[in-house]
């Protein structure tokens, strides 16, 4: 795979999440776009590439957005990969810039949330889901991931407290960042006493649907430096979809198939990562990512989280340093950008009071799209601090 030489990620932007919004996904997209331009000191016509991931932008698309934003880009991409869309946007946009198809690409994940958007989304998510999952309680991903979680617990001896450790550390990170929808401390007692949603999942294992947007700009390092912008570099990236289709119950995913290639390309190992931003739709999936991305052995994540601090300043593996979706809420496809955007913030020293000291390299991974009994899409990037 060709290296991603000299590509810069700049202007990480997160719009504050809202529990409910009357505004459209187009507003969240456009407002994130404006904020990114402002951060970078650019005019909208400087942007000649646009990549968007959104569930609720329909009936509009990235095409409609060009008219709403009154821009005339020469490169467009719509990424239908939900929680995997952030690292995938990095890959697509980086290649476009490398090939000269675009000079500056704006990558945005944005979704709104009204009383009905989440229920409507779940009802019509896929044909398999409509026929064979939704009629069993309309629980959406909770039903499927409850069963994935139980299987993981029985297979590897993980306990509820282990998932609790992930959630509690993320809440501490969220409190440090100060931006999350959930802004009260979470104790193990609170975690264990929470009401059941779909056993073994309880309230704090599940993400709250919210409205929000996340985005960043992709350009050459030369351009970023000429603009005087702090940037992160892409050291490696990968994606794999519908991996391990013969596993009856999902316990590993595509990351396991390309993580070695990524570390080789980055000339770094998991021990060199100053942080890890996983896709945390459920804590079990963060633990599967710790395993499949090589931070511990397969099945070893429970032991890993028992012994390794996961907070931003705990001296272990800073994990989901802004609190992740389990604290911030899940802003649809923006949730797929959250980890990537936080990774860029950390590497450009623009995080809030949750800045990991001397962060030089880190990983962000994505995971999305429950078609039937698991998510199909996986993605990951290794990023490094710019100028090094």
């Amino acid at each position: 795979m060709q290296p991603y030489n000299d590509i810069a990620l700049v202007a990480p932007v997160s719009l504050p999440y809202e529990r409910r919004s009357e505004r459209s996904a187009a507003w969240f997209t456009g407002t994130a776009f404006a904020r990114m331009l402002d951060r970078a000191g650019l005019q909208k016509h400087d942007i000649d590439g646009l990549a968007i991931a959104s569930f609720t932008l329909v009936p509009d698309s990235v095409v409609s957005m060009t008219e709403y934003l009154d821009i005339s880009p020469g490169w467009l991409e719509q990424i239908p990969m939900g929680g995997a869309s952030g690292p995938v946007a990095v890959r697509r946009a980086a290649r476009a810039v490398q090939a000269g198809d675009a000079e500056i690409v704006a990558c945005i994940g944005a979704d709104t949330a009204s009383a009905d958007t989440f229920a409507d989304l779940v009802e019509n998510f896929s044909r398999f889901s409509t026929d064979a999952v939704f009629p069993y309680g309309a629980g959406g991903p909770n039903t499927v991931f409850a069963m994935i979680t139980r299987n993981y617990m029985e297979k590897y001896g993980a306990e509820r407290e282990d998932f609790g450790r992930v959630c509690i550390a993320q809440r501490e990170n969220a409190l440090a960042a100060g931006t999350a929808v959930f802004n009260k401390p979470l104790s193990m007692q609170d975690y264990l006493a929470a009401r059941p949603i779909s056993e073994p999942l309880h309230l704090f294992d599940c993400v709250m649907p919210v409205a929000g947007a996340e985005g960043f700009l992709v350009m050459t390092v030369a351009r970023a430096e000429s603009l005087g912008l702090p940037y992160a570099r892409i050291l490696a990236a990968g994606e794999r979809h519908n991996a391990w289709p013969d596993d009856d119950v999902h316990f590993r995913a595509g990351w396991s198939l390309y993580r070695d290639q990524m570390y080789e390309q980055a000339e770094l190992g998991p021990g060199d990562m100053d942080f890890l931003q996983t896709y945390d739709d459920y804590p079990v999936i963060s633990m599967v990512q710790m395993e499949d991305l090589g931070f511990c052995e397969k099945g070893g994540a429970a032991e890993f989280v028992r012994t390794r601090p996961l907070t931003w300043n705990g001296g272990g593996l800073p994990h989901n340093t802004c609190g992740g979706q389990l604290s911030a809420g899940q802003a649809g496809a923006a949730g797929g950008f959250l980890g990537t955007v936080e990774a860029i913030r950390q590497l450009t020293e623009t995080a809030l009071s949750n800045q990991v000291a001397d962060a030089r390299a880190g990983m962000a991974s994505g995971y999305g799209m429950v078609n039937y009994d698991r998510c199909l899409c996986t993605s990951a990037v290794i990023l490094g601090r710019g100028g090094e």
Partner: protein
Amino acid sequence: MTGQLMPPASRSRLWQQVNEAAAAGLFRLQVCSGCGTVQYPPQEFCSHCLADELPWEQVSPMGEVLSWTTTHASTNRFFKGILPFHVGMIKLDCGPVLIGYLVAASLHTGSRVQVTGMPDKSGQTVFLAGPPGTDPAAEYSKLLEE
């Protein structure tokens, strides 16, 4: 019936075949005429060999519970009225993994179960699973067509 809450009625066009089999008291799934792979959920072509002749044939309704959950929350008003209920992933002896309602007696990983298709209150077939030779309907009377 006016005002009565109903379970979701939307299904793909292929689901009519599932309804017809359940009405006849049969457990029929698509079996690829090219390679014999049993498909579930329904497809228009075989996911293994990509052939598009998938006749509906009677297959074994027996299987094993891979995992399960007890659901205590739903955003759907009908399902809120029948909480809590149990859902399982069942590895059918004929191949596919099927998600279905489980009776309380089968809430163990590895339980042997028999799957039965029955019409719910919307008239669409749902699959229920319980110990072989038993009738799973009694535990789900609020879900099923009277």
